[in-house]
């Protein structure tokens, strides 16, 4: 979504606002620019940065949430990713993990491959999640609403989906400078 279409907030700005509210919660971050931006904004051992396996972030998060019911699991996802792994909304909705917060940064494009449009401009993903059985879903645009709803979801039993409309601006970021096996090891140690 272009800034002139009414969304002033970039994904990196939205992500920074959420990372400020998190401490030691495990965060699974989808492939492409979201992982690279999160790594630049705040690198924590509790972050699992994905490269590849697009669409799998909520499924990985679900595995963590089921195995670690006392940890609140956060997923940073994108609209293209959710559309690719849409079946997982149903699995999450059916299994109803309480400790599951699914944040979708919705910019309506495949931003890592040249901004080809997705179909999230006409498919309201948070309504799909609600129909599938997510307990709380919200769609927000402004930073204040984003912060308010995220704080609220941190207190509520889930599964929760917070969809935030963002523009297609991308931060000037490099790749995640960690080897994938080291990301695994570090994340596992942080979860213990």
């Amino acid at each position: 979504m272009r800034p002139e279409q009414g969304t002033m907030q970039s994904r990196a700005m939205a992500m920074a606002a959420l990372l400020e509210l998190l401490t030691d919660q495990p965060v699974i971050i989808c492939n492409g620019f979201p992982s690279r931006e999160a790594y630049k904004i705040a690198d924590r051992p509790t972050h699992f940065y994905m490269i590849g396996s697009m669409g799998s972030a909520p499924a990985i998060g679900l595995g963590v949430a089921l195995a670690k019911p006392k940890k609140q699991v956060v997923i940073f996802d994108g609209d293209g990713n959710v559309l690719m792994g849409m079946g997982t909304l149903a699995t999450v909705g059916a299994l109803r993990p309480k400790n599951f917060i699914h944040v979708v940064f919705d910019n309506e494009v495949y931003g890592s491959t040249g901004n080809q449009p997705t179909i999230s401009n006409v498919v309201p993903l948070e309504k799909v999640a609600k129909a599938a059985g997510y307990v709380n879903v919200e769609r927000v645009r402004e930073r204040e609403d984003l912060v308010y709803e995220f704080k609220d979801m941190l207190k509520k039993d889930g599964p929760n989906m917070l969809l935030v409309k963002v523009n297609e601006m991308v931060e000037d970021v490099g790749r995640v400078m960690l080897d994938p096996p080291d990301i695994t090891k570090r994340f596992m140690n942080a979860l213990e």
Partner: protein
Amino acid sequence: MIESDAFIQALQDIGVDFFTGVPDSILAGIIADLMERRLYTPAVREDEAVAMAAGAYMSGKIPAVLMQNSGLGTSLNTLISLNMIYCQPCILIVSWRGYQGKDAPEHLVMGEVMPQFLDTMKIPHRTLSEKTAIDDLKWLAETFMKQRIPVALLITKGVVKGLHP
């Protein structure tokens, strides 16, 4: 024929404590047993099951994913760009549909090429038999621990008691 409860016990004995997957008739007895014991988390696609297993593995579990061999095709990208690249092992319990060309048409191509397919993907595999079952499970555990990648145990029709014995 191996009883499904004995098979599940053997998997638990090597440490498996997270079971997910997508059903197949050859695996029906095992899944029914797992569900009765509330040990099974159903997935809607095999790649989702593999990713869920990866999350469970990173949370300290030893995961097993049950699937029909058609699901290997569905899981291919996840097995490569998640499990292989991130060194995340999981045990794949795969039913070998189309074994020796005796099955419905949709299973024949994958049934014929499956061992070569797994070899190409560098996924170690063995085919379960009643005679060598103890050894097969031991191999499974050792390969999982040593190689830290997905490892597959293939099950042909009639080896573990299922819906169509």
